[in-house]
């Protein structure tokens, strides 16, 4: 597998840390080396939230990703903050429900989708994060659909088991987008 | 002679078993000796020497661990209530007491004192208030009286700059975790008997699981006050007792409650979330193990010679 260095970035409450956890679990299921690192502290309280997820076949050095090859950006400030860090040939997934100005780089692939609106239309409010994971899965094929589905089952806490089905739906919407 | 041998011997006074036959470091005329003895008599009378774990402070009673026959820990200055908390949480079925002076308890250890009390730690605190730092040679204490001359208040405690003394029993009496607070002194046989009764009650409360108990003993320090022991008592009666009135400041049992928790619940009755039978918590608590399992796990966790 090509090493996946993914930055998930957006507002607190958009489920970015959870989306990162789903991808990390997918890596765990497929026996890759995995790390997941959140931003933490006051910046989390109502402000931006981001996390770094690395899937690799080599032991992972720094879990803090300075040069992502995949960026999921769920608001404008996050896109501005991270788009220049993405390595040439990398992918940027943008939720255009919330981002108006798209990246102008021509050395990366940009995938724009109205993830938040798509989720809301499907009565899956709050699952734009997983819609974007679905899109990334389709475009990168970092693992199989079955693996991500299993990862969702692991990442959703038992108390919220009712949400598993909705997450799977959101994943499919992203895959088909 | 044979007649005398048949006469029944009646012991009217002897060293308590839990007080070891060692020379203490106390100055002549110091009241620590009296209070040490009262604590030891209490331990003997309750038959708890083998079940008691003491905590000594930093101050004149720092060597307490050498004077008592029960297991003992020496705590850092002011930390005795925290140390006692650690011991009591490991051994909830044992009797844990701390013995502290005014600087230890009401100055450097005030946070530990207040929080052990408000947590309702089921421990017993014996508090010696002699309005001065004795061991370090007579500095101003948190309980030194206004205008009292000490080494570090050579012109008298100036309340405009050094503030006012702390009345510990009054301060702690507002806390819901507290079961029993009494201020006593040991300047006369009558008062010594009263002090003994209070100390015994403070230990009995712990055995009965009633809650945090503290006995404040208004004491003297003839050496650092620069007085004879009898003059010191006179000074104490004249100056300290008006500022630190003797009496009971909290006694939940006398107030008609089974323990501190029941008294606290009554006080909080108008606050829905504080109610002991809060139904919202039942579901959350359902996942917790039984008390028996908890005790079993605790016993396993202790290791040691139990």
């Amino acid at each position, binding site marked *: 597998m090509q090493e996946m260095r993914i930055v998930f970035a957006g507002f607190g409450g958009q489920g970015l840390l959870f989306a990162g*956890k789903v991808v*990390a*679990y997918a890596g*765990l299921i497929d026996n890759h080396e*995995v*790390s*997941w*690192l*959140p931003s*933490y*502290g*006051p910046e989390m309280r109502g402000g931006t939230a981001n996390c770094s997820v690395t899937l690799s076949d*080599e*032991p*992972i*050095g*720094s*879990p*803090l990703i*300075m040069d992502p090859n995949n960026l999921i950006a769920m608001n404008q400030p996050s896109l501005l903050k991270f788009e220049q860090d993405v390595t040439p040939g990398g992918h940027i997934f943008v939720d255009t429900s919330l981002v108006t100005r798209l990246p102008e780089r021509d050395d990366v692939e940009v995938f724009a989708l109205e993830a938040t609106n798509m989720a809301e239309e499907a009565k899956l409010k709050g699952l734009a994060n997983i819609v974007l994971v679905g899109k990334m899965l389709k475009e990168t094929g970092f693992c199989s659909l079955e693996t991500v589905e299993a990862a969702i089952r692991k990442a959703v806490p038992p108390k919220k088991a009712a949400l598993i089905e909705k997450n799977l739906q959101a994943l499919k919407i992203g895959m088909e987008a | 002679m044979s007649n005398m041998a048949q006469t029944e011997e009646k012991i009217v006074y002897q060293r308590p078993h839990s007080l070891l036959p060692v020379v203490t470091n106390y100055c002549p005329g110091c009241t620590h000796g009296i209070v040490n003895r009262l604590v030891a008599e209490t331990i003997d009378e309750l038959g708890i020497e*083998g079940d*008691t*774990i003491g*905590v000594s402070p930093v101050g004149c009673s720092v060597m307490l*661990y*050498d004077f008592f026959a*029960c*297991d*003992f*820990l*020496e*705590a*850092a200055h002011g*930390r005795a209530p*925290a*140390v*006692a*908390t*650690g*011991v*009591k*949480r*490991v*051994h909830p079925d044992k*009797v844990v007491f701390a013995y502290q002076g005014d600087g230890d308890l009401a100055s450097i250890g005030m*946070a*530990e004192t207040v929080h052990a009390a408000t947590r309702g730690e089921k421990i017993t605190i014996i508090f010696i208030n002699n309005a001065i730092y004795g061991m370090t040679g007579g500095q101003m204490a948190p309980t030194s009286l206004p205008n009292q001359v000490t080494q570090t208040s050579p012109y008298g405690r100036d309340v405009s700059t050094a503030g006012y003394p702390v009345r510990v029993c009054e301060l702690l009496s507002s806390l819901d975790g507290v079961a029993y607070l009494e201020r006593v002194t040991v300047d006369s046989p009558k008062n010594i008997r009263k002090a003994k009764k209070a100390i015994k009650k403070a230990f009995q409360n712990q055995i009965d699981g009633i809650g945090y108990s503290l006995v404040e003993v208004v004491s003297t320090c003839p050496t650092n006050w620069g007085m004879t022991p009898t003059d010191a008592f006179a000074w104490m009666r004249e100056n300290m007792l008006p500022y630190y009135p003797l009496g009971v400041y909290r006694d939940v049992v006398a107030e008609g409650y089974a323990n501190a928790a029941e008294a606290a619940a009554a006080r909080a009755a108008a606050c829905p979330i504080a109610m002991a039978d809060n139904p919202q918590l039942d579901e959350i608590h359902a996942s*917790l*193990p039984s008390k028996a*399992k*908890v005790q*079993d*796990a*605790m016993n*396993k*966790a*202790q*290791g*040691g*010679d139990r």
Partner: protein
Amino acid sequence: MSEKVLMKGNEAIAESAIRAGCKFFFGYPITPQTELAAYMAKRMPKEGGTYLQAESEIAAINMVYGAAAAGARVMTSSSSPGISLKSEGVSYIAGTDLPCLIVNIERGGPGLGSIQPSQSDYWQATRALGHGDFQMVVYAPATVQEMSDVAYNAFDVADKYRMPVMILGDGMLGQMMEPVELPEPKTELPEKPWATTGHGNKRKKNIANSLYLDAEKLARTNDERYERYEIVKANEQRAELVDCDDADIIVVAFGASSRIARSAVRAAREEGIKAGLFRPITLWPFPVDALEATKSHAKAYLSVEMNMGQMVEDVKLVVRDSAPVDFYGRAGGVIPTPVEVLDKIRQIKEGLGE
């Protein structure tokens, strides 16, 4: 073999400590160790254990002192400023020869500093966490799995030598999730005949104390403790060596910075530079013997740390004049990048003039 799960470093320490028989946790909230205390608050009641949020770090460590003297496996955790507050209690614990675990999930300093990861408490941990002559065994795990492993074993080491053990982590290791395989719960715990449990009229009384007014007697307790430290030094040094066998340049790094150094060393090898990574797992005792062995062939050493240069002194004490010892570090919560470390390795390579 149990299933691998994703856990934060903070949580892995907590869970493995519980599985090691630790049933008492006393702490106080501080970032970035928060998850450790929160995990304990949730798990301890289910294990029949005690989680107590103390009024201060000072109170927490003194509760640890009490519980340790009373014979329990007990721990506390905090982050840099909170560890400073605990220093008094740790000195008493060491002076009383009590076993316990102290976790420091370091953040930037000095003062209130930052909440970002740092390794600025190396000196505090290995030299002087508190007054008086004493040492703690200090572990510096570099992965979540290793955080679990050292927490699981820490209590055995603490009990064996009757001394405090510290896990020195940082905000990055504490906050990150990695797969971890958790150990089986320990069922047999060591007897502690010295504990203050109440003598039950069955044995001589026990005293937990660090006060010795007789200077000769106090000197003797120090001598005996240092004899024990020599045994610890002989038995407990731990290090990981990566590609050190033929290395010209040995990068020495621990914990989070060792992960960055590992990436840099790998990149250096790809460029044909014979670099290796020497990773101390114990900071005290410092793995002197393993580092000493590298002196036969290493031409230069580079200490990489998230501080202004602390461990580098221990490296120099071993290397002495056999090779130059360089330092690269970022303080204040800044994490050095592999590229920066690689640049430094290249510079050293050039300096060797080969």
